């Protein structure tokens, strides 16, 4: 049972690239850099899994008690300094490979807003159980849907009216909590047009499951037209 199962594990990981796994199908800059690290960590961890499981299976088969060995007691050893040092040092190497890009990307993601060129600012208000998007630039308000132009950097200023929510568009960027006492920022640049699901990822009450919104990324031209039309409608 054990052997086929570990193959099943690896199989699923390999297979996962081609089904509708939104996190692995990134269409935004933030999600892109997160995905790169995700793949790096999976690759490193698959190496770990392979090493551990092959030793595990080998030892189980080789050293199992065979019939007639019930009263057979092997020699006892305390340990082995060399081996033990090996598995203290090796994890450090793996962690180092993982840690450096992790730290670099974290700084880069957290400090994006300053370096942005002409960003589109959107003020997002989360409340039980809906999202309100306000474009200060055009004075447009949308509820439970947000429209973005492709290839233009976006800054979401996140704020909550009541409890804590979390803002998540899996294909564009990872989560950022939406807090009642403090404003958070999430930055990203959508790279492809299309419609993406957005959701609340922090448990926020009875209808938490329904606190979703739709993100539409359109061509810059289309976006400009839309802002003009929407502006007029507001007036």
């Amino acid at each position, binding site marked *: 049972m054990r052997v086929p199962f570990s193959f099943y*594990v690896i199989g699923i990981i390999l297979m996962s690239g081609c089904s509708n796994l*939104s*996190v692995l199908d990134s269409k935004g800059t933030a999600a892109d850099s997160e995905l790169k690290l995700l793949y790096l960590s999976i690759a490193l961890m698959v190496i770990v899994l392979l090493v551990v499981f092959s030793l*595990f299976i080998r030892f189980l088969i080789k050293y199992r008690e065979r019939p007639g060995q019930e009263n057979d007691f*092997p020699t006892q050893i305390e*340990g082995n300094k060399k081996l033990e040092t090996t598995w203290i040092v090796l994890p450090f190497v793996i962690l180092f490979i993982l*840690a450096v890009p992790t730290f670099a990307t974290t700084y880069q993601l957290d400090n994006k807003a300053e370096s942005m060129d002409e960003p589109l600012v959107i003020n997002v208000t989360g409340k039980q159980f809906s999202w309100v998007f306000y474009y200060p630039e055009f004075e447009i308000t949308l509820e439970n849907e947000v429209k973005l132009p492709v290839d233009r950097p976006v800054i979401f200023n996140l704020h909550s009216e009541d409890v*804590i929510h979390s803002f998540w568009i899996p294909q564009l960027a990872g989560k950022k909590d939406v807090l*009642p006492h403090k404003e958070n920022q999430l930055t990203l640049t959508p790279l492809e047009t299309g419609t993406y699901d957005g959701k609340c990822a922090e448990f926020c009450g009875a209808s938490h499951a329904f606190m979703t919104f739709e993100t539409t990324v359109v061509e810059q031209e289309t976006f400009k037209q839309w802002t003009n039309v929407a502006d007029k409608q507001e007036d």
Partner: protein
Amino acid sequence: MKALLDYFTSLPSDILLADVSFIIIAVIICYLLTKHSKWEWLWGWITSTDHKKIGIIYLLVSFLFFIRAGIEALLIRMQLAFPNNDFWVFQGDRFNQLTSTHGTVMIFLVATPLLIGLMNVIVPLQIGARDVAFPFMNSLSLWLFISGGILINVSFVAGGSPNAGWTSYAPLALNDYTPGPGNNYYPIGLQVAGLGTIMGGINFIVTILKMRAPGMRFMRMPLSTWAMFITSILIVYAFSALAVALLLLTFERLFGTVILTGGEGNPIIWQHLFWIFGHPEVYIIALPAFGIFSDVISTFSKRKLFGYPSMVFAIILIGFLGFMVWVHHMFTVGLSTNITIFFALTTMLIAVPTGIKIFNWLFTMRGGRIRFDTPMLYALGFIFTFVIGGVTGVMLSVVPADYQYHDSYFVVAHLHYVIIGATIFGVFSGVYYWWPKMFGKFLNEKLGKWNFWTFGIGFHFTFFPMHIMGLMGMPRRVFTYPEGEGLGFLNFISTCGAFLMGAGVLFFMINIYITTRSTQKNTLRDPWFSRGRTLEWTIPSPPPPYNFARLPLVKSREPLWEAYENGYKNIDFIGEYEDIHMPNSTSLPFFMGIGFLIASFGFVFEIWVIAIMGMAVVFLLMGIRSFQHKSGIHIPKEVVMAEDKGAED
């Protein structure tokens, strides 16, 4: 009468069902106790200060809670089996009550006390002690745990369950958003249970520091004992942080402070306090399991534990680092990048001592003669499961990737791999391993294997798909999901797996029933192929109330194995037989538990008279206890001698 009837007919069907089954079970239990005239026997257990009996009650009660929270898990999985599903009453708020109490009960009232119970039985036996340092406090810990447990467990039929998640984040858990008594149960019930746990932790620390048998140096202690020692230190410091968090929540809900509100305060304070407790808690429930596995793997591979000093070192390091990683639960909160990076680093570092342990276990098996009895099966299942849970843990420490995993089903998968993989597998392993010691009978091996394979396979079918659901963008704690996102199939598999796990637990219960009914007695001292290693296998099964008729003399790390190697039948016991002093049994802890229960109901419903009355009972009993002469009872030398001789034959 009519009003009462109206009230009952107005209840939702699930609560009605629970009420009715409560009553039926209570009546049946009373009937059986009366019929077999067992009330006195029951009272004997309730008032006992024997660490073995207390441990067994711990195990029994937390197993009952396990069944309850397990049924909740099944209901959760039923609701999530299909997209847009409407199962029974469990949508929206009722679903949130299910997940909240499932998590709360499983962590606080199942995982923690199951291990504490098992260690209560085993640690004194492993260090050659006749009891724990504070038998009275041990009993008090038990009854505080039961009081707190009862509170959390009856909440859903008395005023509504907590529904703000097992983490009970503010401001959702404050009066403005979740009014009523439901969320009062959470801080108050856990406060009572947590107080008991802190006492238990102190008790273990002092027991292990002060009551080891002659010659049992620190570096000769079995790994289970080592693990429980470090765990106890974690308990004392982590649970006191929880106590403050719960006190704060109580103040917010009952006394109107505004520290955690969104407007005037800062709700993140709760998250910090909760996780300063919460992450060490993960190690509190993992380390004892690591200890159990170390003993089990060594015994069933017939090999000395590989690298004992580095195993001990790893436990200490994990315990130490465990206090410095809490922010990895809060990466998406928007704290400063430097803080985030620091905690990512410490989180990654924990992989090192954990890796040491995994490889040492593997190399313990190498060169051995591995037997596949049920305890060992669970230990092997643990290695397989925990390694998967461990690597997803490292993946979660990668901050940017965590922005994607966080609060998604990926995390649900990870935490169940770690907690079930370590704690529940560990408890099963330990229970099968030490059952003959506790009760003098083997659990049925055949049923044990059925138990393991159904539970283990069911486990992977339930939780492996959750990794993928997380990557498909399914947030945790949602009670439904739309069609067309491809989530239906995986969720359905997961639900099927959950029922297979349920079947596994049923096999376990059948096993206990059959074993308890059977008259087969195993009076063997050392039942597992007569090759035990540690002190608990040097005394009769079940052990006499005083455990050791004469104190053992420990000359090495594995005294019993050493004795066998040198051709002896048992280790050396030193000294003469003497009168043994044992503590009295006492009913005070039980009544103190009741006092706390009354007071807690007063607090939950904000009826201050009842709260004050309950606390008065508690303090009165404490006063009485202070004035009691702790004389205890003496077991005469002759009785001890006779029993010891009887056991030898």
